[in-house]
């Protein structure tokens, strides 16, 4: 693995995390927000494995990435369960419509 590929990989990490953050800021749909969060965490996953490879500690990085992967999946499950329940109770997935702070 050459340095240029490493730099391209870091750019991919920044791209994925940036797209995820942008989606989180711009989307008003709860399920879309979970999709954006998943994309951002995928970037973090690649960053952890890449950092482990560049620092010659790939096994430690993989075990930590495994924890991140499990936590990310559980966050997606709980987020989707919350979205489904909110859709049932409020009749909408729009974050501004379900907000009760202004009423």
């Amino acid at each position, binding site marked *: 693995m050459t340095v240029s590929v490493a730099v391209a990989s870091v750019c991919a990490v*920044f791209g994925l995390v940036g797209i995820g953050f942008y989606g989180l800021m711009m989307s*008003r749909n709860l399920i879309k927000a979970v999709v954006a969060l998943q994309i951002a965490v995928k970037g973090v996953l690649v960053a952890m494995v890449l950092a482990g490879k560049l620092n010659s500690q790939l096994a430690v990085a993989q075990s930590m990435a495994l924890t991140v992967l499990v936590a990310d999946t559980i966050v997606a*499950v709980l987020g989707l369960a919350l979205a489904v329940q909110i859709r049932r109770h409020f009749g909408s*997935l729009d974050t501004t419509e379900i907000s009760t702070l202004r009423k």
Partner: protein
Amino acid sequence: MLELIVIAAMIFCAVMAIRAQRLLTSAIYLAGCSALVALFLYQLGAPEIAVIELSVGAGLVTILFVFAINIAGDDPAQHPPILPKPMAWVLVLMAVVTAATILLPNYDTILPLVSEPLDDTLWEKRTLDVILQSVFIFAGVLGVLNLLGETTYDQEKHS
């Protein structure tokens, strides 16, 4: 060269997952992005994580998304975002440029790879992580029960 193609396809799938009008299309693009991330992790030399990412990220999570969209319904109506678009772009660019300024100068040296088996590290040195993962999986099972349980209740109520 292959790495660069995979990176480009990964970014394309991520952008399309955010830009897609329908939630189902978004979930399918997310599955594609997961599969490409798995391929990239394999190219980086982490096949164990690649396999788990492929089966969990591209398989299980996609099925859960399709299931949740099926229950909650796909709302194709476009609402205007809360933040103005230029402001979101500026915030994202500021975050990315700051992180790149800190991180990129440290990537000029690559240390020689010391091969250490993953199972030794995972089961002996990072036992706390394994316990934490078990707790996470238990919480996930409760979440899936929550997703499924209410469906049965509604069906009973309507019948």
